[in-house]
């Protein structure tokens, strides 16, 4: 299935979804705002491609992690489709973050302080 590879071009699988969910937990947003938000929060380290964002949003919609609603944006005054995290989205996010933390910890332990010391 090609779909699985979409988000992993730059990141590992599931990372984009995690960041979307995290952003939405802070505040419901529409697609464009999500791109902006992730870019700003990562201090432009991460470029979210629209080519990955929208399929990811559709996947989240399909698995009922988020829900969408058309409204009029107060700032730009245009019709936008605002995404909101759902309860199951919250739970999923918690699980993902904790497993991500563990993974990160593991990777760090493998790479080790010694190696990191020589590199830095």
């Amino acid at each position: 299935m090609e779909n699985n590879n979409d988000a992993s071009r730059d990141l590992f699988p599931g990372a984009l979804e995690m960041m979307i969910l995290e952003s939405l937990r802070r505040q419901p947003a529409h697609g464009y705002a999500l791109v902006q938000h992730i870019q700003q929060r990562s201090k432009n380290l991460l470029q979210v491609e629209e080519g990955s964002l929208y399929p990811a949003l559709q996947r989240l919609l399909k698995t009922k992690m988020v829900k969408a609603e058309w409204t009029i944006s107060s700032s730009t005054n245009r019709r936008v489709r605002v995404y909101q995290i759902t309860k199951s989205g919250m739970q999923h996010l918690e699980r993902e973050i904790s497993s991500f933390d563990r993974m990160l910890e593991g990777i760090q332990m493998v790479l080790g302080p010694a190696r990191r010391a020589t590199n830095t």
Partner: protein
Amino acid sequence: MSWFERIFRRSHLDDDLVEELQEHIEERTEQIMRLENLSRSEARQAALRAFGNPTLVKTRSREVWEWSRLEALLADLKLVARRLSRSPGFAVTVLLTLSIGIGANTAVFSVVDSVLLKPLPYPQPDRLVTLSLQAPGAAGLASFRDGLLLSPSMYLTFAEHNRTFQSLGVWSAGTANLTGIAQPEEVHVVTVSSGLLETLAVPPVAGRWLNADDQKPQGSKSVLIGYGFWQRQFGGQRSVIGQTIRLDTQYWQIVGIMPRGFKVVDSDFDVLRPAPQAFDPRHQIMEGFAWNGVGRLKSGVTISQADADISSLIPVWMDSWSDGPGSNSHFFDIWRITAALSPLKQQVIGSIGKVLWLVMGTIGIVMLIVCTNVANLLLVRADSRQQELAIRAALGAGRGRIARELIFESLVLGAIGGSAGIAVAYGALQLLSAIGPSNLPRLSEISLSLESLCFTAGLAIFSGLFFGSIVSLKFSRIGPGPALRGSSRTVSAGRDRHRSQNVLVVAQVAMAMVLLVCAGLMMRSFSVLLNTKPGFYAPQHLQTMRVAILKSLASDPVTVTRMQNQIADKLAQLPGVSSVGYAADVPMDGLEPNWNSIFVQGRDSWGAKSTLPMRLFNYTSPNYFHTMGSRMIAGREFTWDDVYNQRPVSIISENLARELFGTAQAAVGKQITYFQLMPWHQVIGVVEDARHNGMDAAAPAIVYWPTMSPNLYGPEPLDAVRGVTFVVRSQRAGSESLIQEMQQAVWQINSELPVSGLRTMQEIDSKSLARTSFTLTMLGAAAALALALGIVGIYGVISYSVAQRTREMGIRIALGARKRELQWLFVRSALALTVAGLIIGVLAAAAVAELMRTLLFGIRPLDPLSFAVVPLVLVAAAMLASYLPASRVSAINPADVLKAE
């Protein structure tokens, strides 16, 4: 969002997505305009650049909701449907051949499944066996009977002493007269011993089985009735239980009704009754070998164990019973009786099994021919799509993708053909049960079962894969190069272009050859059968009618004979009737015959009985042979004088006369008998042989006795055959009016007399030909189909090749080639393929014919005529099929062809 929305609100989802993406780009555009101070169109382009390919994003996002494989399949399906509808001629041809092929296969499979594969409709049918016996020492028996049936004393011994059966019983089918109703009627009766119902183990729909009490000589006279009889005679009312019917002048109480479709092995019945007298252990002799045995094995017991068990009981039987003081029970040692048990199913199916497998095989070959034909058509079509496929390959379509599409198209064709095939099969089965070949057992059980439908589905998929893979193997290999260079336009096709088509045609010819030879062999057998003298003539003008005179109507044998004589006289007076006679059995009527060995005076000593072969016995009236048209080879027929004066006379068949006395003439005047206590009977006539057991069986040696003879066993001095078949020769045979007049004639003598068996000898005759004609019809149809498909195949290939080489032909004509030579070029190539097919076909046909040996009659499997004619037919067909398209060459105008470039 539910799956419901995913299917039905797809467009809504799409709209949302489109709008969302649009808004996104707009917002971005506006931001760029604001931040970088660009014009709207410049900003928009920048936004789009940053965004990437919106269509791709849309597609990717949409894919999330799609069942991608399913939808790809639907898209492929749409494509196939569009392509097929663009060439309706091709589609119709392919689907028609496929549906007929698959339909025919499904129909035949249904028959094979219902008749041969499905277990018998009894509980745990695999434990049921036929208790048949072999008696290789009883000379002559084999000429009119397969094996030996059981006598009541044998049954009693087996039932008591066996160690391998849970239960066993014996039965015998016959008829009885149902009286006391508006018109006396002859009903089908199965007489059973104890243990038979327990063995078959099918409970009644109402009431109870016969019990041990019913089988006691002084027991209550109870019967069971069959479902059909219950519906017909009693309107299906339950209150019938407890009612009394009058059978053969005795009263019987109905105690139960057997379910619809229940048969005793292969015998349908109206009434099922016990036989208290027949199995009374106090009155038993050794003989009476007229009972069919059925047993239910104990679980875990094999047939060979049971076989040994029963064989070991034969000496016990000889020790236990006797034919009376002075007789030697161990006389039967000489018969070398052994058990020959076989699964019950074998008895039910009989000889039709082989025929059905053969038909299944041939119809399978037809299916292969259908597949090769469709493959051929697809090849031709794919050839014309070669450029399209090549372009697609050049544009990057994978080999797998193209192969998948070609196979998918074939599978779709297979599926549609299969669905239509089910309709064809349904029709064919309706037709079959309407015709109802009398020799097809379990006909009522035949239906389009789940198994048949699975078979159809499997066949449709298999055939789709089969011709699909042939085509895709050939075309997915194509490199884009040659096809794109347009080789087909500038040079004639290379050899390998046509190789697959040629191979298919050779295979078709070979398979058609096999089927035609099979059909030819059956046709030859049939014609030999038709030319076989049955021993009677113009059977279509012979009307038969069976009349039984019961003891209650006439106890005295002389009165019985007088009544039969009166009936014969009455019948002879009917308008249009030229001659009347009667006999205990008419040839091929399927009644269980009487038989014994005979002694010749002055040659055979009484002690030699055991070495004398068994002869078939029949009992005939004066004028019987004249009526049947049977020729008297020597001497004369019985006369009424012979009968009433009880003269000891007999007539023998020609083959018996030759065997015993050398010539027919020498037989006349000789004295024969079959029992020491019976007077010598003078042979007064020799009659031509009669095919008593069917046209396809050799004529047995027959001894004919008068219908009234001394009674050797009972208290009365005389005995008369009470159930006889009258034969009436008339141009009106078979007409309703004659039948009614004949019935009236009988009832004028006595209104209580039941009449049955109103058939013409022609019907009896064709019944005995039924197996051969059924096989012939099926094989003939298969062979005709194969021939037609073969012709279409050759026509297609040559026609295509002519079309491809039009340009070459134009140039050849321009260079001075004669058209006739060019036509011959094509015909020759067709003949080369045909001959190659014939060589393979002859070898295959020889092998198949060997398998058919037992179905053939009067010819050898390697029948020279069939093997000579069939290739000629195929060569002629090939020439015709190739000449028609080849003749188009003469219409080629070289100027046009060359101009076209």
